[in-house]
């Protein structure tokens, strides 16, 4: 399971991160070392025979009464927006004019 080399450029793109060359070199060796350590999981042969646990405690669907209630006002929702316009979040332009 362990990888001494990972395609860090591809992983960074998936994570929406842009790394400098220096970061690439540093993370490449550090993450490879961490992934090598994960081999310790292989030492337990009983691993294959168990079900995975996503949560230590049971998780339930949460239902509430279908009734109106107070929420954020538009002003509150926009209060931390880096850029806003006409009562809306302003996003980066992605289409031709």
């Amino acid at each position, binding site marked *: 399971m362990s990888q001494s080399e990972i395609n860090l450029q591809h992983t960074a793109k998936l994570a929406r991160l842009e790394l400098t060359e220096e970061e690439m070199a540093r993370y490449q060796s550090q993450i490879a070392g961490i992934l090598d350590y994960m081999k310790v999981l292989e030492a337990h042969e009983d691993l294959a025979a168990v*079900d995975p646990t996503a949560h230590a*405690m049971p998780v339930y669907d949460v239902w509430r009464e279908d009734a109106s209630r107070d929420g954020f006002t538009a002003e509150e929702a926009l209060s931390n927006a880096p850029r806003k316009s006409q009562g809306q979040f302003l996003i980066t332009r992605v289409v031709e004019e």
Partner: protein
Amino acid sequence: MSLSESTIAQLRKQLKSGDITPADIIKDLHQGMEKVNESLGAYISYDVEAALKEAETADLSLPLGGIPIAVKDNINVKGQPCTCGSKFLDENYTAPYNATSIDLLRKGGAIPFGRANMDEFAMGSSTENSAFFPARNPWDLARVPGGSSGGSATAVGANIALAALGSDTGGSIRQPAAFCGNVGIKPTYGRVSRYGLVAFASSLDQIGPITKTVEDAALVLNHLCGHDARDSTSLKVEVPDFTSALGQDLKGLRIGIAKEHFIDGIHPGIREAVEKAVKQMESLGATIVDISLPHTDIGIATYYILAPAEASANLARFDGVRYGHRAEVPADVENDKRLLYHYQKTRSEGFGPEVKRRILLGTYVLSSGYYDAYYVKAQKARTLVRRDFTEAFEKVDLVVSPTTPVPPFKIGAFRDDPLSLYLEDLFTIPANLAGLPAISVPCGMIQHEGVELPVGLHLTAKPLDEVTVLRAAHAYEQATEWHKRRAPGV
């Protein structure tokens, strides 16, 4: 004894008798903050005027009436900054709502005062990864206070907070509490609502208090727990009065000692302090039982797959559109590349090195071709860790171990060696993987590299059995003097 050196329980008596007012406490704490916060780095920010204003209307008939409590800077308090120790949220984010834990504390009469320093987005075991400045250990300023709730532990350890909220994903309440000579408890997963806690790893995160004594921990915990419909992982269970268990002896209590917790690599002074503590608990009436937790050795690997995986998903929300840092997109970037440029530049500028490392690791273990090899395998390993405890708790009521294998280390000691730093969480991580309640309580002082440093004793119980954790920790605490030792000052 000054007000800021007192415990919550002591101050409650003085407040009720009218000898002091909540404003007196806040002013006393503020005086200390002004004097030592620059050298300690315990608080990222604090607003004394707002706290004094709240103090004017404090209801002293409430259990925590007029008691100021510091808040880790990843828990939302309406109208206050919530930086998460990150440049991503620096100066451009003001919480528009209260975390449920803050609402509950206020219902109990407490006053949130001070935003405690932390590792960025709670990722770290040292509070060196704060984007602003490191927090320092009040017992030795050259050393870390632990992390990620290091600011909370430093503030309590240095008497510039009576108590502080922290969050614990792999030991982030208990490890800094041990390093700073405090009490820190991680409740059962689901006991305390995570609504309003900025998520790091959602299946592991839990809010809890760092205090000077076990009694104070029980007092604060009484006002943190309860079902919350806004958190789908919140448990619908009765909340006992956690202070009711205090004062009992340990007769009939079975304490498990796992051979896997006393391995090579533990500092000899820590081993000795913990062994003495176990004997002390035996003399208080407990029965010591040898047990085995055979999957202890895979806890760290499991955690460092699951936590980064969940973090990589949780931190996807930091995209520079709705809140936080936003990078400028130059006009010459082609239209079809502008959005990707926006995301990448924003996130690369906003996140620090440890956060980027964990996002990359998490993204990798969740990516096509590696999901089964890493993520699913780690979830299976989690089953084994959990099963170990289930079997152990058929024989014992508590599992006792050191909180940390080594004493507080020097700032920068693991700067280029993240894996070695991760291994420090060996004893605390299993409680998070299994969702169990666990506490760290002071159990000794050791001489290490010419300085005197605190040692923590770690007690873990079965799910929802905080009462037993607190009962045992309190009985031990009251039989010793370790909790009375305070940091030598700064």
